[in-house]
């Protein structure tokens, strides 16, 4: 019997597989396909203070081994998530859920996290700092160690739940941002969010996405994500949730060897709706193949001094 359980910042989860924010809605679509209680947990759609329509369409483009999205954080707003989505989720999912939060100012983050802190279904807060700061010329919080630390402190001051800061890969030194979040009190680090990319339609001679640029994810980004998880593991002591292009049980193990305590799967859910269920089912056999009897014991196992 392979032990798949891992301890994620004080909460034990049955296995390290977590659908990533923005690819799993608030759970309802997938609950119609399989029993989502097989998951370690899942990270719900990026939620903001106010409801958001998001960007105009087209919001989706394809790239070799991946995709670009410019959804623009469409979500019903935190109040509706609490009054409608969480009660609906309670009926189908009986584990703590990860609340993914976005904001456009420090106050936004604190406001939304404070509200979600009161929800007992929420196990962890995952704070997406890839968003533009409206008070700083639209520069993303996630590219500046000082701004990233400010968000961390603001969120930590309003919640007792474990806080994972979700980093943008669109930076020169990801480890520096991670360290800054750890020093500001973060309980863990999630990475990576999407890489900024673009596609152009040859017929229209114009960008495919209405927003011109969008976030790239899927198998194409896996080596970049893995490298960043590896670098962050060397720089911080807090747990890491690794993601970016994961699409098999082997990828999960590779991410964990690089330093991830748990692993999120994003774009893969969209093209293979049963992917997370199937990866979890495949994990024991793949672990046995590589001589792993306790998955938690391999975290960071690829770091040799």
């Amino acid at each position: 019997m392979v032990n798949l359980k891992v301890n994620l910042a004080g909460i034990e989860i049955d296995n390290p597989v977590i659908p990533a924010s923005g690819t799993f809605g608030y759970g309802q679509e997938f609950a119609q396909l399989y029993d989502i209680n097989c998951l370690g947990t899942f990270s719900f759609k990026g939620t903001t203070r106010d409801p958001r329509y998001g960007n105009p369409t087209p919001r989706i483009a394809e790239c070799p081994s991946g995709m670009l999205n410019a959804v623009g954080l469409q979500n019903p707003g935190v109040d509706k998530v609490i009054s409608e989505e969480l009660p609906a989720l309670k009926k189908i999912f009986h584990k703590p859920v990860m609340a993914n939060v976005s904001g456009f100012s420090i106050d936004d983050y604190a406001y939304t996290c404070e509200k979600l802190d009161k929800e007992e279904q929420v196990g962890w807060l995952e704070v997406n700092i890839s968003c533009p700061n409206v008070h700083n010329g639209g520069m993303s919080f996630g590219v500046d160690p000082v701004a990233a630390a400010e968000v961390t402190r603001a969120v930590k001051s309003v919640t007792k739940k474990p806080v994972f800061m979700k980093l943008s890969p669109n930076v020169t030194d990801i480890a520096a941002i991670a360290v800054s979040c750890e020093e500001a009190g973060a309980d863990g680090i999630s990475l990576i969010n999407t890489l900024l990319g673009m596609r152009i339609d040859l017929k229209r001679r114009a960008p495919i996405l209405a927003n011109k640029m969008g976030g790239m994810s899927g198998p194409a980004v896996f080596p970049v994500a893995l490298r960043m998880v590896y670098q962050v593991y060397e720089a911080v002591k807090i747990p890491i949730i690794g993601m970016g292009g994961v699409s098999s049980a082997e990828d999960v193990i590779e991410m964990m060897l690089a330093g991830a305590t748990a692993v999120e799967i994003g774009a893969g859910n969209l093209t293979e709706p049963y992917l997370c269920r199937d990866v979890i089912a495949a994990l024991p056999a793949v672990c046995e193949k590589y001589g792993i009897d306790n998955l938690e014991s391999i975290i960071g196992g690829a770091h040799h001094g």
Partner: protein
Amino acid sequence: MKQSLFTVAENRPLAKDVWQMTLRGDTSAITAPGQFINIKLAGHFLRRPISVCDWNDESVTIIYKVLGKGTDEMTRMTEGTVLDILTGLGNGFDTAKCGDKTLLIGGGVGVPPMYGTAKRLLSEGKHPIAVLGFNSKCDVFYEEEFRALGVETRVVTVDGSYGQKGFVSEALGEGYDYFCACGPVAMLKAVSDASTSDGLLSFEERMGCGFGACVGCTCKTKYGNKRICKDGPVLTKEEVVW
């Protein structure tokens, strides 16, 4: 929605750059004409959404236009090729809303879903009228198939090389009590403006998932945000925000 494997039973050209493919497999998730399927193609990350043209207990027929690499590769698939497909996606046309004399308006590869809709209406004892629009004579397909059902069929070409000259929106005529339309968005808008009855319109959007999970395909309607893939692709004329 159902994910299952289908086998290509037939794949043949119908008109310029337009092909018909019949796929054998489990069609139990398909419940209404105007729904679509989402096809996994080797070497491409995202699936390709294609409307259901016709289906029975054993197979589903689609008609696709060669647009980019994926649809081009589809033309080279031979009998026996196995494809991983999501079926039963989208709401489809609610034929309970349709009157006795419903216009079925298709433009280009918007024609295929009208064929399944015609069959459903006929089985309900109704008398639909097909208005099929194409750019030119070389693009025309399925005129005979609609006539073979016993459906009154009008063909319109933009350049006048076949049938009536002009746009489908100029060929709606009179005496209809409802309409169903599928085609390019400019056509849908023109049909919506020119029509004198209520109706249903089927929209396209670039999709991430096709089953409602990613909100990549959202549009605004009078009743709030809707996902083209899950709450659509068919919307009522009255709710559309142009």
